[in-house]
């Protein structure tokens, strides 16, 4: 007998696959969105896409849920409760889009009438190209504010980009030829958890671990993460000291004669005595503690090696580094030898070493290894993006729409984030804006708008933003009830990514250009509006020629179509040559990487022979590849030695002016007074922070840290014993700036001097599951983290804080 009878099937149409790209991390994997009867029910990686290759990471599949999150905002709203606080209900009431957009435009016009347009700031996180973040520049220029489009890169990974800029002259992330690499060393980048492009990293991992020869992988971190556990060798290092280890590795590589002579250069032969009876002189070499005459060395693609040795490296022995890093000298020697001999090899780093006060110098020390072993632009090595997606553009010149107000010298106000003034070398400083606004330094803001960023949760000392946002008119564009939203005066909810038409380039992962398109898989589920169109609609409502400009632009769809028209002359490798074919395939790409270095010579791609075979002279290399003052990889970075920066570095870090350009050891400044280092890295299911309200994600947060309803504080059993903490006890992590509570997990895979709590839980908004009463952690880990930045890169020092820990 039937106990249950299957209900009659829904009368249904066909399943349609829409091409799009994922939004849950910056990698931008191409996705196939499966829709039946107007409902999205599955997402898979696009097969014909060089990043996703048909695969997806765990987050990618959950995008469906992000579309149907029951806590999404259903339309524009305004606040009716004037009081702002974590426990204040904003008492939002729905309003029309017309009213919402007019409210913003009225404020913006009023500021302009008073000559105070600089008091409108627009902060953003993840930009996705020309039709969202790409609109900021023109908007700011026409409106007249230096604060339109203040990015969050200083809470992301600016440190690694700056280190590469100084050494190589390119301000960008790296591209990597993992597939051909035989030895991979990973410093503080959670390669199998949060390092982009996560999906592709895992694809290549499967290959690296089973190819012949198997790629040797070493991980340097502060606890055993998934990446460390999966690697061949895990080295647990004292936080912030990765640079010391890298310098000692460089010392070993040079003193043992293991550097790549064809790329770096070599000693000239020793000049032998004329008298054949005199004893023969040995070849020149690097000897610990001994200076060398720079004239004895003939450099190839590097600059300043001997000067670097004399000023820094000669004393950076493995024994010296052991005292600083706690890594045994013999291990440092072993990994250095391996890196320089089991080739091709790559020394990769990201936020771990760079989110410290000495972050740029740590990064430079690590990246310098890539030059010493000749990995730059080599097969199986590390390089940068070449080529650009041939986007077209709308034929409307924004400069023609600047009125006298926008052109006036009065518009040359300093930025609210201090970039260029207080932070001379930084590109962003989002984490300081709240504080500067409160101090009125250099002025107070009036209106602040957020797009895909929430410093009130994600910035160091994030709770200061709860004060900063009190007297500001706050506009939030997230479709989700974020912490920002709880302090917002106006909600202009964006479409989720499955509802948008949007184009973007990927980062420089593969080294060749990849342009992507999102096409809406369904009509908007609610009364939301794509952020790019919100900006354009606000622009249309600004008085004067600015309004005219945006009327001519019309909407983001016009921009997207104009951009895709650029493919007509340069079709992609997959045949994409116009808007329709772009929508059908979802991606345009053009292989290969334009340049390669082989045996110390650079070659350009030859279309005829389909090989990197056109030799490049020094001038071409300087123009295209090594864009430093010398056209070489600079172990003595000319960029930093410029007068405008050298004095600044000296003042901030105490580095002697004549030494500022060298990768070098600068001790990290640990902030706070506790006895333990506090580290808050990301879990794979949560990286990029879009999954806090997904019950599916919460149910699988792994491994030692997570599980079901709570995330855990990793504490070494010895440390826990000293403090009387047992497994499962709720503990309080305290610093000068705040505290956070979570259950303890005794874990011998973390350093005894470090506690680790992932940056994941602790939401007090963001939806019913994110803030469920059952969760032990009630606030952001960032309340414990002091707001200190690397003075050079501006990167927030997330990992430099000390804390104390006690049973709660």
């Amino acid at each position, binding site marked *: 007998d039937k106990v249950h009878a*299957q209900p009659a099937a829904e009368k249904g149409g066909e399943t349609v696959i829409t091409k799009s790209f994922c939004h849950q991390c910056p990698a931008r994997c191409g996705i196939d969105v499966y829709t039946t009867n107007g409902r999205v029910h599955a997402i898979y990686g696009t097969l014909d896409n060089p990043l996703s290759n048909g*695969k997806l990471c765990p987050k990618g599949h959950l995008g469906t849920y992000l579309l149907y999150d029951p806590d999404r905002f259903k339309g524009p709203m305004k606040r009716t409760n004037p009081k702002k606080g974590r426990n204040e209900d904003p008492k939002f009431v729905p309003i029309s889009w017309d009213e919402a957009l007019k409210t913003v435009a009225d404020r913006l016009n009023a500021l302009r009438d008073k000559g105070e347009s600089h008091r409108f700031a627009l902060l953003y996180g993840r930009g996705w190209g020309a039709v969202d973040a790409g609109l900021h520049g023109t908007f700011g220029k026409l409106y007249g504010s230096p604060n339109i489009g203040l990015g969050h890169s200083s809470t992301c990974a600016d440190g690694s980009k700056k280190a590469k800029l100084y050494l190589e002259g390119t301000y960008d992330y790296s591209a990597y030829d993992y597939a051909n690499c035989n030895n991979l060393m990973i410093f503080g980048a959670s390669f199998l958890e949060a390092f982009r492009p996560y999906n592709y990293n895992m694809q290549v991992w*499967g290959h690296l671990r089973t190819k012949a020869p198997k790629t040797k992988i070493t991980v340097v971190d502060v606890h055993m993460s998934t990446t460390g*556990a999966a690697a061949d060798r895990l080295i647990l290092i004292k936080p912030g000291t990765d640079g010391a280890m890298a310098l000692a590795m460089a010392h070993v590589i040079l003193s043992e004669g293991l550097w790549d002579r064809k790329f770096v250069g070599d000693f000239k032969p020793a000049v032998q005595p004329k008298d054949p009876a005199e004893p023969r002189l040995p070849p020149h070499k690097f000897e610990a503690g001994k200076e060398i005459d720079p004239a004895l060395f003939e450099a190839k693609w590097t600059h300043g090696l001997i000067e670097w040795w004399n000023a820094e490296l000669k004393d950076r022995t493995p024994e010296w580094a052991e005292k600083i890093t706690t890594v045994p000298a013999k291990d440092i020697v072993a990994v250095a030898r391996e890196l320089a001999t089991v080739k091709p090899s790559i020394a990769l780093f990201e936020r771990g070493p760079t989110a410290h006060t000495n972050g740029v110098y740590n990064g430079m020390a690590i990246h310098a290894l890539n030059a010493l072993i000749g990995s730059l632009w080599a097969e199986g090595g590390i390089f940068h993006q070449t080529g650009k997606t041939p986007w077209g553009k709308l034929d409307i010149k924004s400069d023609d729409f600047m009125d006298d107000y926008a052109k006036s010298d009065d518009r040359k106000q300093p930025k609210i984030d201090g970039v260029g003034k207080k932070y001379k070398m930084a590109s962003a400083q989002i984490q300081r804006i709240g504080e500067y606004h409160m101090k009125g330094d250099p002025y107070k803001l009036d209106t602040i708008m957020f797009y895909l960023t929430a410093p009130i949760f994600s910035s160091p000392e994030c709770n200061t933003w709860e004060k900063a946002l009190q007297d500001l008119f706050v506009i939030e564009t997230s479709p989700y009830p974020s912490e920002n939203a709880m302090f917002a005066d106006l909600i202009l909810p964006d479409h989720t990514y499955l509802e948008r038409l949007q184009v973007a380039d990927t980062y420089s992962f593969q080294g060749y250009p990849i342009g992507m398109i999102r096409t809406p898989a369904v009509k908007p589920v609610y009364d939301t509006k794509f952020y790019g169109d919100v900006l354009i609609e606000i622009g249309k409502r600004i008085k004067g020629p600015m309004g005219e400009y945006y009327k001519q632009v019309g909407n983001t769809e016009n921009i997207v179509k104009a951009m895709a028209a650029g493919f007509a002359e340069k079709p992609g490798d997959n045949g994409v040559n116009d808007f329709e074919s772009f929508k059908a395939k979802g991606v345009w790409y053009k292989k290969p990487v334009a340049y390669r270095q082989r045996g110390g010579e650079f070659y350009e791609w030859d279309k005829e022979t389909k090989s990197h075979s056109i030799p490049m002279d020094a001038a071409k290399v300087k123009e295209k590849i090594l864009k430093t003052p010398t056209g070489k990889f600079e172990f003595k970075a000319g960029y930093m030695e410029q007068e405008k920066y050298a004095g600044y570095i000296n003042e901030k870090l105490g580095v002697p002016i004549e030494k500022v350009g060298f990768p070098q050891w600068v001790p990290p400044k640990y902030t706070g007074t506790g006895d333990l280092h506090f580290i808050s890295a990301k879990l794979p299911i949560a990286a990029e922070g879009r999954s806090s309200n997904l019950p599916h994600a919460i*149910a699988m947060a792994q*491994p*030692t840290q997570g599980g*079901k309803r709570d995330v855990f504080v990793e504490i070494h059993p010895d440390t826990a014993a000293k403090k009387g903490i047992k497994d499962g006890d709720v503990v309080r992590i305290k610093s000068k700036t705040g505290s956070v509570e979570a259950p303890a997990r005794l874990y*011998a*895979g973390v350093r005894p001097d470090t506690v680790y709590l992932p940056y994941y839980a602790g939401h007090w908004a963001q939806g019913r599951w994110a803030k469920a009463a059952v969760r032990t952690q009630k606030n952001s880990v960032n309340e414990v983290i002091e707001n200190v930045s690397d003075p050079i890169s501006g990167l927030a020092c997330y990992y430099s804080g000390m804390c104390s820990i006690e049973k709660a």
Partner: protein
Amino acid sequence: MVIDLEKCTGCQACTTACSMENSRLPGEHWQDVIFYNEGEHPSAQMKWFPRPCMHCENPSCVAVCPTRATYKAEDGQVLVDWERCIGCKYCMIACPYGVRFYTEEKPAYGGPDAKRVFAADDGHSWSPPWKGPAEDWKHGVGVQPSDVVSKCTFCYHRVAKAPKGTADLDPQNPALREFTPACVVTCPPGARMFGDLSNPNSEIAKAIGNKNGVRLLDQLGNKPQVYYLTGEGGAVPANRSLPPKKA
């Protein structure tokens, strides 16, 4: 199915792909990955173990089912007929692999019960807006009714449509991709393979032979149809040897 532990990165994309393809409740991990750790650095170990239903040749769950709701399908899958299942959970006790789920468990993730938030009024246990179009209660496919046991079907609704006699379902082959189980389609490091074990020329049969394919708790005699390749990488846990049973 073959799972190469040397490639597996423990990312759980199999878990989420399965969850969405099969409209699973949060935490109802038909494709689970189990993490465990022991020891102290530098000899500490953290490991993970992907664990689907083994679709045993000799399944203990089938033997104990009082209503014949759990059965062995023609192509070798072990399936649950939800129209017959009475939710007695005998099969959950009998299964040595812990891969069966009862719909009415309390939510493990904390916070509101997703079954109530996305409530159904038509005999389904819940009705998520993203539920897939495939529904086939006779084969345990789709959103289940209340009070039944559910489990991995090896994506029966996909695999059953594959051309008969296909040796391997390779998701990188566009012609076979839609017939391949969701976890195999998505697995980023390519750790999963799916094919016909009875065909000695299949890639999975070769992989088992070439790379030390082993089965979990083989000594129990269930003869799983999921093989693990250990290579130099992971190990199959708790594979203790027991004295052979008398014939």
